[in-house]
């Protein structure tokens, strides 16, 4: 296994220890509940924002905690929803009179865990609202599945809500921001390899040397189709078309465009994809007001990327531009 791990059973607490050690000024941690929080939250005048999911998607979510981003986050085992108690303790750790917005990516396990935690917290009188993120266009909605998955678009929900909360917006307003972002953001990914969970030690799905999974999920779930690998421009076109055709992105619209690496793809290749995506957006008359190229929501060490596009209005553009800080730093 080509990985930096000790006992796979300790993988989550160990990398959390690293995150906490590297951000001692910013974050408090509670390893009993795989939880981190901003040192300066809760604050009586600020809505708190929390999210948590399975591990393996770093920087989502514990590295997304900080001023202008999440107030607290917790992690489950790799690719498994956090235990209910971890969710509950995370809410409690930043509960405030201004209320808590609980962001949940749309997966059965995450939803059930956060539902229970929210019920427990509400039973104790904690004021909160829950919001479900589902930006992945790969999986079509249907009456008998849990619906579209929440993937990298989730970054924009955290960023915009984080900025609104930081500015003192109330719970209903921050919730409305989440709704607006989710209504206007779409993502699709592609996986060129499977990822390898540390505890399993090998690939979670088989894929040929010349194959890719179009629409792959961030846990390696199958997407729309298994296809032969194509040139970067052609793959980018597929991702862009899937995203663009899912919403009425109109000529003249201002957008934020993200190319998100899934963990095993290096920076130069993400920029090859960005170059083509930016050209396609320009061809469609879209104005790229902000762009993001890097790792925002990974699938362990999967080679692949996703393309996310968020339609902006003045409010969202302002929220994305607001300063923020989290465990991911360059300098």
């Amino acid at each position: 296994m080509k990985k930096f791990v000790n006992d796979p059973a300790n993988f989550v607490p160990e990398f959390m220890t690293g995150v906490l050690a590297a951000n001692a000024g910013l974050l408090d941690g509670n390893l009993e509940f795989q939880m981190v929080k901003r040192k300066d939250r809760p604050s009586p005048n600020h809505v708190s924002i929390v999210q948590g999911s399975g591990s393996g998607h770093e920087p989502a979510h514990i590295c997304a905690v900080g001023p202008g981003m999440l107030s607290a986050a917790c992690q489950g085992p790799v690719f498994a929803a956090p235990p209910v108690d971890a969710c509950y303790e995370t809410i409690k750790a930043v509960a405030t009179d201004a209320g808590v917005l609980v962001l949940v990516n749309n997966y059965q396990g995450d939803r059930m865990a956060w539902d229970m935690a929210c019920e427990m917290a509400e039973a104790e009188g904690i004021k909160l609202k829950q919001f479900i993120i589902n930006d992945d266009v790969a999986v079509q909605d249907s009456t008998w599945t849990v619906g579209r998955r929440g993937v990298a678009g989730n970054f924009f929900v955290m960023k915009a809500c984080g900025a609104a909360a930081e500015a003192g917006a109330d719970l209903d307003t921050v919730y409305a921001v989440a709704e607006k972002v989710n209504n206007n953001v779409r993502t699709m990914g592609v996986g060129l390899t499977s990822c390898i969970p540390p505890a399993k030690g090998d690939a979670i799905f088989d894929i040929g040397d010349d194959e890719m999974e179009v629409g792959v999920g961030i846990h390696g779930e199958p997407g729309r189709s298994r296809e032969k690998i194509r040139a970067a421009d052609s793959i980018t076109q597929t991702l862009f078309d899937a995203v663009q055709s899912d919403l009425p992105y109109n000529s003249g619209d201002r957008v934020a465009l993200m190319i998100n690496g899934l963990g095993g793809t290096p920076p130069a290749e993400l920029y090859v994809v960005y170059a083509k995506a930016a050209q396609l957006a320009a061809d469609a008359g879209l104005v790229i007001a902000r762009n993001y190229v890097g790792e925002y929501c990974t699938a362990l060490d999967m080679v692949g990327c996703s393309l996310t596009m968020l339609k902006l209005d003045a409010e969202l553009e302002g929220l994305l531009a607001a300063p923020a800080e989290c465990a991911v730093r360059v300098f």
Partner: protein
Amino acid sequence: MSTLTIAQIEEALDVTCDTVIRNEKYFSDLDGLAGDGDFGTSLATGFKVIKADLPGIDKSAIGAMLLKISMICSKHVGGSSGPIWGTGFMRAGMVSKGLTEIGHQQLTDMVGSALEGIMARGGAVRGDKTLLDALIPIHEKLQEMDGSDLGVVLAAVAQVADQAIDETRGLIAHRGRASQVGARSANTPDPGIVGIATILCDWCKHYGVDYTPQAAELNH
């Protein structure tokens, strides 16, 4: 009609812990066929704690004990199984609140309450290829029986769960991770159903109840 005491339920829970812990890898492997391969680990992580804590747990009433079990699931079981098993134990505990022994009707009500809670929690219905496809017919079977002989009841529900494995094998999962592979989940057993059936068959063995498992996964 025979009754079950707290001590007897504790014993059954302890046997359950052994079953889950022993099958950690096997249950995960089954989940890997169409799901994400974590069912065995998720469940075993919690039942290792239950096994350790059981002797010292509050046993003033059956409900109190089950609520504590539920809380351990909430704290230590990740993935969908945390809320599902946590909800199940909590709902069974609510129905047995304050009781120090239960009869057949109460047992039946506890199972019914648990499965209602799980349905409300995860939105699954019969035929979605989840452990509800074992729990619902078990509940029906309990309703049909009078419970005069515990061994007979146990063999009957074990058989129901056993059959559920093969009856649902061909279905396409509509809930949980396995639902995301679409048709690829057909012809794989649901690990949750196998889990329930394995526990019941191990109870049969432990209590000397004669039952011969049919499904391949119970004879692996």
